[in-house]
């Protein structure tokens, strides 16, 4: 008998009382949101910004038209010499026409340029699949064009987030985006830059991942403050 068979056999041999009913998670969250004031776009944006700031993430409100220019200004201000981006991606063309210097496409398998990625890349720009207002969280789904490490290895992570894709809770996001229909090889929730409190419970940013997280929040003209 294999270890697998032995383990399963022991589990199956255990006494079982009345089987519990399946937990009704949707009903739980429905009750929670019913007890809150109705969710509005403006409230979601404000809450997201507040929570993201709490995690030490910067949020810059931008529009479809001006985000590449804004990004260029931020890159200049932060002294970013090289910016990693994914190609092809929805925003690659806009990015290229903005005249940002040091643009670098993640266009090869990691093994071919690991050292340069780790040691010679200042920032990475990724899209996001949405955000979660309650916790100030980005939903990042890496793929072939925007690989996993873009949001991890460079010291600064820029993330484009469409305010239309802000959800109240993680559960809402999962349901609305139908995650259970199929998950990518890697999906991430990101709430702020990497951090640790392992030395004397003192918080320090930039533990192993990005030291800074800048969210470019795409909003309508009138929502830009």
């Amino acid at each position: 008998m294999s270890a697998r068979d032995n383990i399963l056999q022991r589990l199956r041999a255990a006494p079982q009382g009345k089987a519990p009913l399946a937990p009704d998670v949707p009903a739980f969250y429905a009750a929670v949101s019913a007890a809150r004031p109705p969710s509005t776009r403006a409230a979601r944006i404000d809450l997201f910004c507040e929570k993201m700031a709490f995690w030490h993430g910067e949020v810059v409100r931008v529009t479809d038209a001006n985000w590449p220019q804004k990004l260029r200004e931020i890159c200049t201000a932060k002294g970013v010499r090289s910016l990693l981006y994914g190609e092809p991606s929805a925003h690659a063309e806009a990015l290229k026409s903005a005249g940002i210097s040091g643009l670098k496409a993640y266009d090869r398998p990691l093994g071919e340029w690991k050292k340069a990625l780790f040691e010679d890349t200042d920032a990475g720009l990724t899209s996001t699949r949405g955000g979660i207002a309650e916790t100030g969280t980005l939903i990042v789904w890496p793929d072939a064009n925007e690989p996993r490490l873009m949001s991890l290895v460079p010291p600064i992570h820029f993330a484009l987030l469409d305010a239309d894709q802000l959800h109240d809770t993680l559960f809402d996001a999962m349901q609305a985006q139908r995650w259970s229909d199929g998950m990518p090889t890697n999906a991430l929730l990101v709430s702020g830059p990497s951090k640790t409190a392992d030395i004397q419970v003192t918080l320090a940013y930039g533990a192993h991942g990005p030291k800074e997280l800048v969210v470019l929040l795409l909003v309508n003209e009138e929502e830009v403050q």
Partner: protein
Amino acid sequence: MNTQPLDFVPASEFKQRASGAVADAHLRKSFRGAMDFLISKRAAQFPDPVALENQRSLAEHIRKYSLARLPELLEQLERKLTDNGVKVHWAENAEEACAIIVGIAQRHSTKLMVKGKSMVSEEVELNHAMAAAGIDALESDMGEYIVQLDGEKPSHIIMPAIHKTKQQIARLFADKVPGAAYTESVDELIGIGRAVLREKFMSAEVGLSGVNFAVAETGTLCLVENEGNGRMCTTVPEVHIAITGIEKVVEKLEHVPPLFGLLTRSATGQAITTYFNMISGPRKPGEKDGPGEMHLVLVDNGRTQAYGDEQLRSTLQCIRCGACMNHCPVYTRIGGHAYGTTYPGPIGEIISPHMLGLNATHVLPTASSLCGACGEVCPVRIPIPELLVRLREEAQHDARPGHAPLRGQGAAKSRLVDAVWSGWAALYTRPAFYRAFGWLATRFRALTPPMQGGWTVSRTPMKPAARTLHELMAERKKH
């Protein structure tokens, strides 16, 4: 790094180590301060007690439901992961788990394995097995890196280096990290660790991680972390090996948010961690990073023993938040190392007997005042105090009729204790004897010994009153 086997201190010497720890003023201050901090951070996350109880009810329900269907869910998880391209392994005990992982590492002729935080890998003593095979197993969580560098074990499951001051860490880095200057700046210390470990992430062929939740319906492994080292370990090396206990599986993705929300709030008082890493397979053709090969090792190591008993099964509801130890008056005073087991504190006292047997661990369930704090804060409502009492009982008696004996059943049986109890029972159930005993004890109270074993180590001796309660009450009725 230290590749020497760490000193594993058997739990049987618990009392000695606990006395040592209690006498260490600096250690007590470290733990008291850190635990107070974590307690207040957690409390701030749950301002509404009714809402908290609702969340706990749901989380408990999800865990009980998952455990009731455990064998099916494990099979479903295995099927899904296999479809996703992940190789699933099963290990009945620590040796098997280590052999599987060493075997994978050897097939890739790796010299270095980077590790994200995994308590199960500590539990099976994986680092020893890797060292014995000539492979460096490097911890990359900052706290774990620090304790490994100093040849120690974690003292807390969430904050492994909580027992160390920044001055001690500064000295450790200056002594052990080549080129590191002495600095007490926490940012600079973290910077040193970051630089050293980034080199290692780049060069390691194998990365190891734990698992917080394994989702059966999609074949997804979820990892909770703040630092990003878990993402490094599971993304940069060509091979990713995840190791987990068989109890971590849930049926659906929708079961994750309630558990995840309670886990981070209970553990460190955070509404969410920086990263929640959901991994469902190795990189697909065309993807440019991520491991090319992925494994999951499902470990039993005594869990099926707990599962075999309907009361003890609730031990497996645990999501490893550490709130029970943060709130434990015993843990706060003696720290994590005194327990001598991978999992310290109340959860360690109820899970270790299944992993190591009652022979080695029967003293642990007695390291509790049964104040109930652990059970009150447990996000999945494990009745920890009841389980402690049950395990004390199992350690002192034969198995209950109709129950299979636990490993080490009856290990703490003592003829003396049994005799004292039967003597007491004989006395207590016979009024005449009991009156006579009371009369003797009160009249000859001057003969009470001044040294009364463990009691008088830090307390004044016990002495019977001048008259029994019976006599005093009779006296009172007269007037």
